[in-house]
């Protein structure tokens, strides 16, 4: 019997490390969804990479049965959200699938910028929020203080807040009861035309795209012809079901429910989070609000170290794209690196994750060029071109102006670090917006900063300037004209396209110096001297020389040295395999990315 009143849809909002996954695990355990024996720690984060980094990248939803103190059974749909700034839009869409959220705050840490950003997303989506103060078992826990902070700073009442320890399981049962009592049941007319929200999808080679949906109105059954409102495509439903977390097939899903849908959809690019599904023959007139097509924010070149692996890389990227609608790529050729791909990512973390998966799961050694944002180039001819690869910047004489994307940065920091962080933001060409107190000890800084400066060593510096205490959130703001130019890097007199970058002219000299010095450090010495130069418009602005190796031979090689020496050479050979011959110079794969980790002042 379908009973909308017995459904609760919620997600968990938390800062990294505040214990979201552990709490989810306890909830799964308490509702008997997962046998303790089959519990892998932190079940919802199923990718190895996620588990290692302690972050959720791919969304998951799970349907649980809960037996409440009123003697009735309730259906809980727990919808997980990714916890990183690159995925704000995805978070907002999965929150839109819920009526409530658990706000998990570490009792030893308090509220962080990330949490705040996601809470605001939840508030925007009219969610009922239950504060959950986690890690109260730790000696340094200060639940009282954290409650105050939540009330005064976020403006959420902590009357119903619960102190828990997800680790020990303390009070997790109270959280479950509170979910029933506080979070409203979904509403929505089950007889209205179908309106279902897509909040996630993944690819399955047998069933095509498996879409995770939240039905807002109406119902859908196997055999129905559905219509994707934004993509304007029709498909026939081949399978419906819920995950408990094992898949359980259903013939029909009703408004209020969360489940998955398969319709032999071949291309995940047709299936975007936030998209509305309706029925072809009985369509809704008003698709769900909030849908945005999100575009990649940073691009980089991806090349196999071994050029024979080009095809493998292509296939691997295609496979990753099946499950990742925000990843885009197209073939690209570099004089220096040969055949590869230009790939677009939502942000640096997204890029990192893709790189690691390619190297780890597909065993392809990669060279990544330094990531670039998309520049808007206004030509003297009146045309406008978008450039995602610095080496493709048109001849300067044809350019009227170059615009670059700015972001609105929201930095929360203990107040003692405000000075250094403001300095950092100035250094990064930030435009100060405002500074407000969050509570007695913390402040929120708002800046507009060029995205290219965020890409370039911003996170690490923010971390070190604030001893790791500052947290950071951003959203794209707009494009602005900047004083930019292309800087070429020359190795042994030859410009290396894969090392080109677009720089802010007034600080180009420092950047050029820092880059040439860094390259001298990471490129091993060769059998000849290699000049490293940085040039703008053909004019060299910085130079260092990598001295030639003069002697590299084992002094003694007798009976006992032979095996040892052979093994040593073998090891060095493996290192060499990860180098790319660029012109006549052997360049290690890290050299390209190392440009990002440079401190201009060093």
């Amino acid at each position, binding site marked *: 019997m379908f009973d909308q009143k017995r459904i609760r849809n919620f997600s968990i909002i938390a800062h990294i490390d505040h214990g979201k996954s552990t709490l989810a695990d306890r909830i799964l355990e308490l509702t008997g969804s997962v046998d303790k024996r089959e519990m892998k720690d932190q079940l919802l984060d199923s990718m190895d990479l996620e588990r290692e980094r302690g972050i959720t990248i791919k969304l998951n939803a799970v349907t649980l049965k809960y037996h409440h103190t009123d003697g009735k059974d309730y259906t809980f749909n727990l919808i997980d959200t990714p916890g990183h700034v690159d995925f704000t839009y995805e978070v907002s869409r999965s929150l839109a699938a819920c009526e409530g959220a658990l706000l998990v705050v570490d009792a030893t840490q308090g509220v962080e910028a990330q949490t705040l950003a996601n809470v605001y997303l939840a508030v925007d989506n009219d969610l009922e929020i239950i504060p959950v103060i986690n890690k109260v078992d730790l000696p340094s826990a200060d639940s009282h203080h954290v409650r105050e902070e939540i009330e005064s700073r976020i403006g959420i009442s902590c009357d119903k807040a619960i102190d828990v320890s997800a680790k020990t399981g303390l009070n997790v049962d109270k959280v479950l009861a509170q979910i029933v009592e506080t979070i409203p049941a979904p509403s929505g007319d089950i007889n209205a035309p179908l309106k279902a929200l897509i909040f996630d999808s993944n690819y399955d080679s047998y069933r095509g795209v498996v879409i995770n949906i939240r039905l807002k109105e109406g119902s859908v059954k196997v055999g129905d012809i559905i219509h994707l409102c934004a993509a304007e495509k029709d498909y026939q439903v081949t399978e419906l079901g819920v995950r408990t977390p094992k898949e359980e097939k259903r013939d029909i899903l009703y408004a209020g429910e969360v489940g998955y849908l398969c319709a032999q959809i071949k291309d995940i690019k047709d299936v975007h989070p936030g998209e509305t599904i309706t029925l072809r023959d009985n369509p809704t007139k008003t698709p769900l609000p909030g849908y945005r097509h999100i575009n990649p924010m940073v691009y980089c070149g991806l090349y196999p170290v071994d050029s024979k692996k080009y095809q493998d890389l292509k296939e691997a990227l295609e496979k990753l794209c099946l499950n990742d609608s925000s990843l885009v790529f197209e073939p690209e050729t570099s004089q220096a690196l040969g055949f590869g791909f230009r790939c677009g990512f939502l942000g640096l973390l997204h890029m990192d994750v893709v790189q690691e998966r390619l190297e780890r799961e597909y065993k392809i050694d990669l060279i990544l060029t330094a990531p670039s944002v998309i520049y808007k180039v206004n030509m003297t001819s009146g045309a406008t071109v978008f450039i995602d690869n610095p080496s493709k910047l048109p001849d300067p004489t044809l350019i009227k102006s170059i615009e670059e994307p700015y972001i609105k940065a929201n930095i929360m920091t203990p107040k003692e670090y405000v000075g250094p962080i403001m300095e950092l933001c100035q250094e990064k060409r930030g435009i100060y917006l405002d500074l407000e107190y969050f509570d007695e000890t913390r402040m929120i800084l708002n800046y507009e900063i060029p995205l290219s400066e965020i890409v370039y060593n911003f996170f690490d510096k923010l971390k070190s300037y604030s001893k790791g205490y500052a947290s950071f959130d951003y959203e794209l703001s707009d494009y602005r004209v900047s004083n930019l130019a292309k800087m070429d890097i020359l190795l042994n007199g030859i410009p290396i396209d894969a090392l080109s970058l677009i720089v802010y002219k007034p600080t180009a000299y420092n950047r050029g110096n820092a880059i040439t010095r860094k390259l001298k450090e990471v490129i091993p010495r060769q059998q000849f001297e290699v000049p490293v130069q940085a040039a703008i418009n053909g004019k060299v602005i910085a130079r260092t020389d990598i001295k030639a190796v003069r002697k590299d*031979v*084992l002094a003694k090689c007798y*009976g006992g040295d032979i095996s040892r*020496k052979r093994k040593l050479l*073998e090891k060095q050979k493996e290192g060499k395999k990860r180098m790319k011959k660029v012109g006549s110079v052997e360049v290690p794969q890290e050299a390209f990315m190392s440009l990002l980790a440079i401190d201009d002042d060093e």
Partner: protein
Amino acid sequence: MKKKITSLYIHIPFCRHLCDYCDFTKMFYLPLYVKDYIKHLVKQIYNLKERKYKTIYIGGGTPTSLSPSLLEELLKALYIHKGKNTEFTIEVNPETMTKKKLLIMKKYGVNRVSLGVQTFDADLLKIINRFHSKRQVVYWINQFNKEGIKNINIDLIYGLPTQTLEKFKKDLLLATKLNITHISSYSLTVSKGTRFYNMKVKEVADDISREYYDLLYKVLKSNGFKRYEISNFAKNKNWSRHNLNYWNGGEYTGLGLGSHGYEEGVRYQNSTNIQEYLKGHYIVKQEKLTKKEKIEEYIMLGLRKENGLNKESFKREFREEIHCIFKNSLPDCIQNNLLCETKYSLKATYEGKMLLDQILIKMFLDL
């Protein structure tokens, strides 16, 4: 068909002093162990299958740290395996050398000695914790010559802390004036576990090491010492036949603590733990070489020799043309003047010898 093993290495790990840079298997001379150790060696030597070896080499440690009677016991055992033309070498430390030991050596047919001189410079000797003097070295060289052991090597080291090119040149000039046939010279290598390593002594930069080497080569050449391996120079072709066997990829038997051997395609190592060794647990590590590894070693060793390796022998050994195996690296290295070839041989040029490790890595990538 089994190849005959033509070389025998015996390791004497005991030392009266431990040198700061030495990373061979070594230990203080403990009378408690030494006697027992020689007993084990002698037994093993009697059990050897080969009757005669072309070369026998006693290295250390410090072989001359043995008492005359133990030395005699050891040499007597080895004597059985000495043929008429056998090269029979022992490493000599001037500090622990005595007339008595010399006569024992002579009696049992030792015909080549290698002196670990390292340097004649008194200050440098102190730095490396060596207690001999220039006078002692000269004295023993004369003594050996007088007793008819005329095939004499000395080791010289460069790149020591506070050493200069001038000091090294002085060492070289002095060495070439001595009545010796052979000089081996190595740059200081700081290995883990040595006192130098713990003292954080740094090896000299490669460009400085290269200057030392260029000097070494020049001075020795102009004084009649011709290079036949990267670090080895000989007058009148008095090459170390024992070491040449290594560089030719030949097999050899190794006896004694921590020593290595290579028999029937298997590289093995004897235990480095004296207690284990004295229980008769000799061989602790064994590794059968694959064809690829054999090829790697063949070029790694062969290219160290002045005249490189013989392409015909290579083909006979591996049933493939060397050019077919090293398709990319050979033309590349030849073009860059690192390797050169004649009809029969492939060898590293002077520059190539200096950058041999880089050449080898390049060649290994072809395998």
